[in-house]
């Protein structure tokens, strides 16, 4: 487990794993905002640039996500064929819908 952006106030930890079919799973815990999103992106760059077919973002323990988080998810969605967001908190899911991104990001409640 790695910690990101603890000093900046917002705190985000992530865990990397693999799904049963071998696709990468990143599990987020804490707050994904403009201070932590760039760090998470840098941390996951090696995985995203190998262009896996599918990337699973487990957002079940994400407490907060702002527009930077959305931008990051969209960017991943543009680079990876399929980005699946598992169990996002209600507030994140609503923002995704509000931003018209429901079709771009495969949200699995």
């Amino acid at each position: 487990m790695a910690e990101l952006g603890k000093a900046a106030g917002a705190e985000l930890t992530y865990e990397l794993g693999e799904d049963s079919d071998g696709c990468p799973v990143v599990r987020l815990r804490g707050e994904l905002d403009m201070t932590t999103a760039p760090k998470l992106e840098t941390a996951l760059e090696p995985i995203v640039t190998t262009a896996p077919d599918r990337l699973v973002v487990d957002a079940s323990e994400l407490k907060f996500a702002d527009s930077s988080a959305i931008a990051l998810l969209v960017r991943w969605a543009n680079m990876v064929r399929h980005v699946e967001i598992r169990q996002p908190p209600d507030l994140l899911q609503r923002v995704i819908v509000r931003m018209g991104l429901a079709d771009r990001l495969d949200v699995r409640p």
Partner: protein
Amino acid sequence: MISEYAGPGMTDTAEPAGRWVLERPRSDAVSGLSEQARRPFRVALTVLVIGLAITAALTVVSSAVNRSNEKRLLVLHGRELGAVLAEALPSVQTPMASAAALADATAGNPQKFKRFIASYVGGPPRQFVGVSLWRLSGGRWSPVAEVGAPPLLRSTHKNVAALFDRAASNHKLTLAGLVRSGPHTLRLGYAFSTSTMSGSGGSYAAYGEGAIPANRRSRLESNQAFSELNYAIYLGRAPATQNLIVTSLKRLPIRGPHSTVRVPFGDTVLTLVVGPRQALAGSLPGRLPWIILGVGILLSLGAALMTLRLQRAVYENRRLYAEQRTIAHTLQHALLPETLPSIPGLSVSGRYQAGAENLEIGGDWYDLITLKDGCVLLVVGDVAGKGLPAATAMAALRFAIHAYAVQGDTPTVFLPKLSRLLSVTEDRLLATVLCAVVDVDAHEVTVTSAGHLPPLLSSSQGSTFIDTPPGLPVGVERDPSYTSTTVTTPRGATLLAFTDGLVERRGESIEVGLERLRAEVSPNHMPLDDLLGRVLEQLREGAFDDTAIAGIQWLS
């Protein structure tokens, strides 16, 4: 810490509000800073003064402790020296008493007297330079025998008899005082008599003279006990020069701290005055106050300098922070419309508020563009992110929309084109944009959203969000497609478009924030400017993100 930019409203306030707001924080900051600029010096000076005061107090206390310690030691040493002096009495009195007793017992036999006393007479360290035996016969005292130097008694004392009479009645060592011969020979005379005045076999008295050093000075050797003291020994109670027996000093009286001890000596007393030749407790306690003073001054200066540096750093940080804010705000406001166009039949207004403690420029904006055919385009947008990249993207989008709109493009036409200016993959930026085309006379609003929050339509009949299917935010993909929704507005309706900073809170669904806004606005009978002010005031409490809000209100 929220500075507000009140966009120039088209209501009857003709005052160019933008300018006033821009200058207010700056003048506040400048007067506040010049006041603060003097603070580091004041704080450092306070530290210095406190440090010096503590140093002075410690110096005084340590000096006082040292002085009282020296005084105590001096008194102690004086007493010790007095005890030593008191021990000298028996060494003089015993031979004298023995000689007098021997004379009584032998009826004044001169030979026996001489034999007995000879061992006490001579140069130092013997007690006497000369001793004589005197007899009272027929009311007169006359010498019977002499050993050593002849007595100087008669040359000094006119009434020799009085001395021996006193000795005969005293039965203890009786001091004749200082006896002299010429200016240089000075001695101390003692008499002792054991007989009674009424004795049948005659009365005898022994009389001895002890040497006094030349000039009554005695040199102290450094290895001697009490070598750290200066002393003067006087005969009698008064420390007067004529009574001086011996001293270690060239000049008297002893100056500075001194201690006086009186020691019984025969029928009189010796007065001993002592003063320190050097610090009695050693040199360190004496130097300690000066060491404390020196070190204290150095530490105080060091602390003051350190404080000055730290305070200056704090001040400099504050100044830079204030400057940064000012720069960010100035730039932000420069990128926002300086004036909104005046539209007949409408009141229009827009405001921008920076988030609390926000240093960086944000990417929120609003705009109002006059179109052909009595229509107006209200735009509110938000570039995700902060800093110059967000601000420049915002400026590019704002001016592009302006150009496309003036050229005649509708939002569904120009919004897809905007994604050519911005790419989330390449620029790491995306933007949400809300466009509302307002047909003033037809009371119609056509809303198109690129992933933006819906605008709020408010009238006396209530408030509702104009929900339109949101298209993709700008920058997600090339040439996305957008759909519009047209609604008819009641008379006097108000349309508010805003960015998420107004409604978004950590740990709270955006729907809650939207509902809070709706509740705040309805029922709405307020002029647009007042409404914007109230909404910002009520909803922005505790908000950290920047907020742009713009609205139009039908005057009829």
